[in-house]
């Protein structure tokens, strides 16, 4: 099937006569041993033909080429870098202020006078029992209700009040400084008696029904049952903000919009905390955050990952790492395996015995646990991710050579006895040349099949290790460590685009290597029917 006779249709007699007559033209005519006369195919070409006829294997090859293009060319085309971070602005609610409605009497003591807490308690008792005077710490106090629930307390026999108790709190409208006691007293006695003006220290004050206190048109202080305090110490809450906030809260609104004097608008959310009967005011602020777990968009076809990096780009670079590691590990395995297996098979005797016992020992070493232990050790040592990758390749390669050595040895043992080797020996070709020039090429078909298959399994091992967090490490991407995110159940449930594409890539690549390997095995086997 590998050749066809091109001359079949020509008339043989005619051809012979022309050959005889035209001896000069004989070169151009097809002589019997002319290559052009019979279209021969080299064994290699036959293998290629058989391979190409295997549709499944060709599919595998196409997948592999696609994956290689995706990983190596894709990384060049993509506009993003492997570890480029993306940010987004997020509306985050931050604690801005706290509001508390005062439901208990508050005591304010006069400057330079003491009104200890024992006296406060005695006062409450006296008020409940309807007494006008009470004793505390050897001092007798009297009190008067000078306004609506505004109690002023005097030390008996003194004119100036020692303190007062009220539900309202007086705060300054212009700064955070405290309002002097005397002014507080004046304000409250005016406000709680429904008066609209009073004078204090040569200034004329007016009081409006909301509790605002003005000198002329300028507000200087206010009295209110609500205490509004900023969370951050550097924030000053203006009177109008507090006022609007309190109105909004007393109306039962939970959303609050405020425009300050500079025209800056902001949205606030009010939440009630039943535990300490206060309202928390949350300001909605724009904050720059990592754009993590973003669903696929036009900019990021596969969304972004945990660190806010473009998933598709990570996938491309991950493929690169996986393929690189696969190829290098298999290369190490093959070089070691071919040299040791070749020596063992060719030399025989004690060399063979020694090498085969080493192979036996290596076969017995449980490789996965060993790699896990070494990975954990490298974790503890904080090995640089790049060097770690190198170690990983060396370890995998060093643990993988025995199977190839066995294969090569077995092949060589059977080939060694064949006639062409006797001929090579008889020709006086030196041993190394006999091994590497005559024996090894005959092993190559088997070797290629094994290498292709072990490429797939190496990629799988690397991915498993990276998945466990013991292989390729951040910042480097690998298909295994991309899927690692799935350990978080929230990611498993909600973000398919994080782990399914990487898994599909991995499966496709390994499957393709196996399909191609399988196809090659069939193609190399001359006994195959097709």
């Amino acid at each position: 099937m590998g050749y066809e006779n091109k001359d079949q249709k020509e008339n043989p007699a005619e051809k012979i006569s022309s050959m005889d007559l035209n001896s000069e033209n004989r070169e151009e005519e097809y002589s019997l041993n002319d290559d052009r006369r019979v279209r021969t195919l080299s064994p290699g070409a036959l293998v290629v033909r058989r391979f190409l006829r295997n549709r499944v294997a060709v599919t595998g090859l196409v997948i592999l080429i696609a994956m290689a293009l995706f990983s190596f060319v894709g990384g060049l085309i993509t506009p993003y870098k492997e570890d480029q971070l993306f940010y987004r602005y997020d509306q985050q609610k931050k604690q801005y202020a706290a509001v508390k409605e005062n439901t208990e009497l508050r005591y304010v003591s006069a400057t330079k006078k003491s009104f200890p807490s024992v006296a406060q308690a005695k006062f409450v008792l006296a008020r409940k029992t309807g007494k006008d005077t009470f004793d505390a710490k050897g001092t007798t106090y009297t009190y008067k209700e000078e306004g609506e629930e505004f109690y002023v307390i005097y030390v008996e026999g003194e004119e100036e009040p020692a303190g007062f108790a009220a539900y309202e709190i007086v705060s300054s409208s212009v700064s955070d400084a405290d309002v002097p006691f005397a002014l507080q007293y004046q304000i409250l006695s005016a406000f709680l008696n429904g008066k609209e003006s009073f004078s204090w220290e040569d200034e004329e004050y007016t009081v409006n029904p909301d509790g605002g206190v003005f000198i002329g048109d300028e507000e200087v202080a206010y009295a209110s049952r609500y205490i509004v305090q900023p969370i951050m110490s550097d924030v000053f809450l203006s009177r109008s903000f507090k006022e609007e906030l309190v109105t909004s809260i007393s109306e039962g609104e939970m959303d609050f919009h405020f425009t300050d004097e500079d025209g800056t608008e902001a949205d606030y959310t009010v939440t009630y905390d039943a535990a300490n009967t206060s309202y928390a005011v949350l300001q909605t602020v724009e904050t720059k955050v990592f754009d993590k777990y973003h669903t696929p968009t036009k900019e990021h076809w596969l969304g972004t990952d945990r660190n806010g990096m473009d998933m598709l780009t990570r996938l491309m670079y991950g493929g690169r790492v996986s393929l690189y590691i696969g190829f290098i590990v298999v290369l190490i395995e093959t070089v070691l395996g071919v040299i040791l297996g070749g020596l063992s098979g060719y030399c025989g005797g004690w060399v063979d015995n020694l090498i085969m016992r080493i192979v036996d020992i290596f076969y017995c070493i449980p490789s996965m646990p060993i790699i896990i232990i070494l990975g954990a050790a490298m974790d503890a040592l904080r090995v640089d991710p790049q060097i770690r990758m190198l170690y990983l390749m060396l370890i995998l390669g060093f643990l993988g050579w025995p199977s190839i050595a066995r294969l090569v040895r077995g092949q060589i043992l059977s080939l060694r006895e064949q006639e062409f080797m006797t001929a090579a020996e008889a020709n006086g070709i030196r041993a190394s040349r006999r091994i590497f020039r005559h024996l090894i090429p005959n092993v190559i078909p088997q070797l290629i099949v094994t290498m292709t298959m072990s490429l797939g399994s190496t990629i799988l091992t690397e991915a498993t290790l990276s998945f466990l967090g013991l292989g390729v490490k951040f910042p480097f991407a690998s298909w295994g460590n991309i899927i690692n995110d799935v350990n978080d159940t929230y990611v498993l449930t909600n973000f398919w685009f994080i782990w399914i594409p990487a898994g599909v890539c991995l499966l496709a690549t390994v499957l393709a290597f196996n399909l191609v390997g399988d196809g090659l095995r069939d193609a190399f086997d001359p006994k195959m029917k097709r």
Partner: protein
Amino acid sequence: MKKYILKRLLMSAVILIFVAFLIYVLMRCLPTSYLEQVARQKSMQPGSKSFDEWMAQLSATYGMDKGIIPGFLAWCGRAIHGDFGDSWKWTVPVLEKFNDSVWISFVMGGIAFILEILIAIPLGIIAATKQYTKVDYTITVVALACFSLPTFFFASLLKLVFSVKLGWFDLGGLVGRNYEQLSAAGQLADKAHHLVLPIITLVVINIGYLMRYTRTNMLEVLNADYIRTARAKGLSERKVIYHHAFRNTLIPLVTMLGSSLPGLFSGALITETLYSIPGIGYVSYQSMVAGDIPFSMFYLVFLAILTLLGNLIADILYAVVDPRVRIA
């Protein structure tokens, strides 16, 4: 035969000693260990000795202060008497922890193994008898896909579909939340219920290889002369395949399956870890990551013994099953 087995056993023992030595050297050379962690913690406590003093004391307690070769000999001496020391991580004797965890792995592996045989061998035979048909291609591709499947990816998919979307199974663990309240039968059912996904994972991951192996061997047999003879005799195709061919295919199959029997005790490291099944695989994974030398040492040597045992069984079975093989 006896002499051969004896020779092989001796050989295996020598290999085992070498393997154990290599593993011991590796474990001792590890830069960090559980002991250091403990020593660091202890030295942090107020009024405690310094880290170095703790380290020296702990090393002496655990026999880690000897050189590598005396240490190994001491380990061997104790191991021969079945004393593998106390696990550092689990703070119980190694063998006790092993005994606690190995049986669940064995049950899991055993069920998966039987299912694999029941599914893979018939499919492999069908693929071989219908070579180059669509059925064959489908089975081949499915088999290759199965052993190309990354365990962790497949397990995640199963979890997504059956645990999250359908809610049929828990995400992990061996027992459910209300295990303590269940009756004995209920507890067994609960465990079985939690083992479904891990067993499916194991079966699917391992089935591909067995399918391919069956197909290849069946094809080899089908090309043999005695099959042609059987057909020439006019036997029905059924009889040719299931009587003449399949019996001969059994030779490599039985050998292969027999040699993988010891592997049932080794546990499925990745699968158990993924589903947090407290079998030997998961337990040893945790020990290895924590640097628990006595337990890891025991587990690694145990795995090596299982491998050697598997090889031995394969060789013996080969001679037993196939009357053409005679060992001098």
